């Protein structure tokens, strides 16, 4: 046996020990959640429905409470694996260690929620069901939820992409041509403050389908906001930038494309960011008020039947979906504005 270790080895051992502790810390919250679920007596009167799953020719029967345990076990596995992987990836270690406390708290929160919502039901029912019931929504109506989610995504994509294109387009015209600015900018300023859903009565009567009406609402809420900021960005381009382009041989078109628009890009993304938040609101509102599908529609429908666990299930999907969209926009923004990195904290 060699007992002498180099300093580097020792440091490495220390790192591994440290990370193992962090992994344990991360998953211990979820282990507590499992223990609570298994050991805590079921005081409140809750019927756990039995579902059967057909996999190949196997029929697996399970109740929703065991589905909840499966989810917890899955979370433990995911965090344990990502933790072990981060041991070998130096750059990921720090982030994992940083997130440990929060993930621990998440597990504890699930445990408390389980007790309050399912075990003794001190939370007002049926408004705040336990975590198991929410999972029930996904099991019972999984494909229906997916269908509605896809409807929302389609509506969002159609509306928001049109809105961005129109917004940037008109913003450039307003910013570049003083005449257009004079006539259009004040209109934009006034109409821009009106929430898009206010136009709903018109949208519903003027458009042939309710889908196109909702697309219209999302378009205008993105359009005005983005046009406003794009115009501002174009207008604030320093005169010297145009002069520098001129003396280098850049004509009008070149100056619009390669001077004005790049200069306006940070503002355009500010516009896209805030328009995006408004687009989510408009999306859900219009789905709630007159769409044959979508997460908003699903929420409304579930509310009618007092199925609040389904409402919560849809809200969870929204949180994940909208965060993901924000994340994607952030990625694009970071890529397009990489020349800014270090100047302004992105």
């Amino acid at each position, binding site marked *: 046996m060699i007992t002498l270790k180099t300093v580097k080895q020792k440091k490495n051992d220390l790192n591994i020990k440290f990370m193992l502790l962090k992994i344990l810390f991360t998953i211990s919250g979820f282990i507590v959640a499992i223990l609570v679920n298994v050991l805590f007596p079921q005081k409140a009167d809750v019927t756990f429905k039995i579902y059967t799953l057909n996999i190949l020719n196997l029929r697996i029967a399970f109740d929703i409470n065991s589905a909840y345990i499966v989810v917890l076990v899955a979370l433990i596995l995911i965090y344990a694996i990502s933790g072990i992987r981060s041991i070998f990836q130096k750059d990921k270690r720090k982030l994992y260690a940083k997130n440990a406390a929060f993930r621990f708290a998440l597990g504890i929160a699930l445990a408390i929620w389980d007790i309050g919502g399912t075990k003794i039901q001190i939370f007002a029912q049926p408004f705040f069901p336990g975590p198991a019931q929410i999972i029930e929504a996904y099991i019972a109506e999984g494909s229906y939820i997916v269908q509605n989610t896809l409807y929302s995504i389609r509506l969002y994509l159609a509306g928001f992409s049109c809105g961005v294109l129109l917004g940037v387009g008109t913003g450039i015209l307003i910013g570049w041509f003083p005449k257009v600015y004079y006539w259009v900018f004040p209109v934009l300023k006034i109409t821009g403050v009106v929430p898009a859903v206010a136009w709903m009565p018109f949208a519903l009567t003027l458009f042939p389908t309710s889908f196109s009406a909702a697309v219209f609402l999302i378009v205008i809420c993105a359009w005005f906001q983005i046009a406003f900021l794009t115009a501002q960005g174009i207008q604030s381009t320093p005169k010297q930038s145009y002069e520098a382009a*001129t*003396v*280098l041989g*850049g004509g009008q078109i070149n100056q619009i494309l*390669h001077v004005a628009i790049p200069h306006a890009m940070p503002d355009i993304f500010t516009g896209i960011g805030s328009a995006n938040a408004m687009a989510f609101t408009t999306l859900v509102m219009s789905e709630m008020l007159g769409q044959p599908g979508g997460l908003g529609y699903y929420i409304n429908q579930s509310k009618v039947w007092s199925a609040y666990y389904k409402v919560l299930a849809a809200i969870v999907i929204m949180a994940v979906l909208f965060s993901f969209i924000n994340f994607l926009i952030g990625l694009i923004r970071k890529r397009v504005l990489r*020349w800014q990195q270090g100047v302004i904290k992105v």
Partner: protein
Amino acid sequence: MKSSISISNVNRIYKDSDGNRVEALKDVDLEIKSGEFISIIGPSGCGKTTLLRLIAGLDKPQTGQLFIDGAPITGADPSRGYVFQQGSLFPWLSVRNNIAYGLRARNVYRSKKENIENYIELVGLKGFEKSYPHQISGGMAQRVAIARALINEPKALLLDEPMGALDSFTRAALQDKLLELWKKDGTTIVLVTHDIDEAIYLSDRIVIMTPRPGKISKIIDVNLSRPRQRGSVSFLEMRRQILEFFELAQAIPQPEYNI
């Protein structure tokens, strides 16, 4: 390829914020021979930038005319390169793309893109091609601005205090670079500066301007052989002459510094 520039009886009047007339240039006449290195010096507000912008075609005079190789100047043209005092790089373009801007703007990028590397090397920015303007120093940024103007192979190069914001070491190095470029291409150069030593060190002739109204007060031939020694007796004598003109000779009996 180089250009001669002819300025005859030019007047440029601005209105300031209170509506008062500001005679930025009054009755300015100047003949610049092709291949000549001219410096324009004078205190701030004497119309140096105004004159340079007129030559570039970025501005127009109220009266008088400017000619380039005998033809009236009607607007900006890439055959006259212009280097701004500072901060004229496009922040969204890398060093390489800033330099390549003129090639793209003139639709000659495909045929001339090999030149980009040459100019990057020429101004000593190899290794910084991918950096963005905010990541490089002020001296490097000005070298990019110069390379960006040079890549269009201008017949005249107009520089507005290109080294104004630089420390004296960077400035001296850039001055030598400029001389090197001028000797190589023989381009006509008009350099605006407020640094007397810089003007003497670099130019064939020094145009001295004075403010209110902005006008040319004196033109000095710099008959010193090149390469010039900044500390030589004749150099210092010329310096004294110019200071005397500005009535500063008494106030500053000794040279401020020698490089």
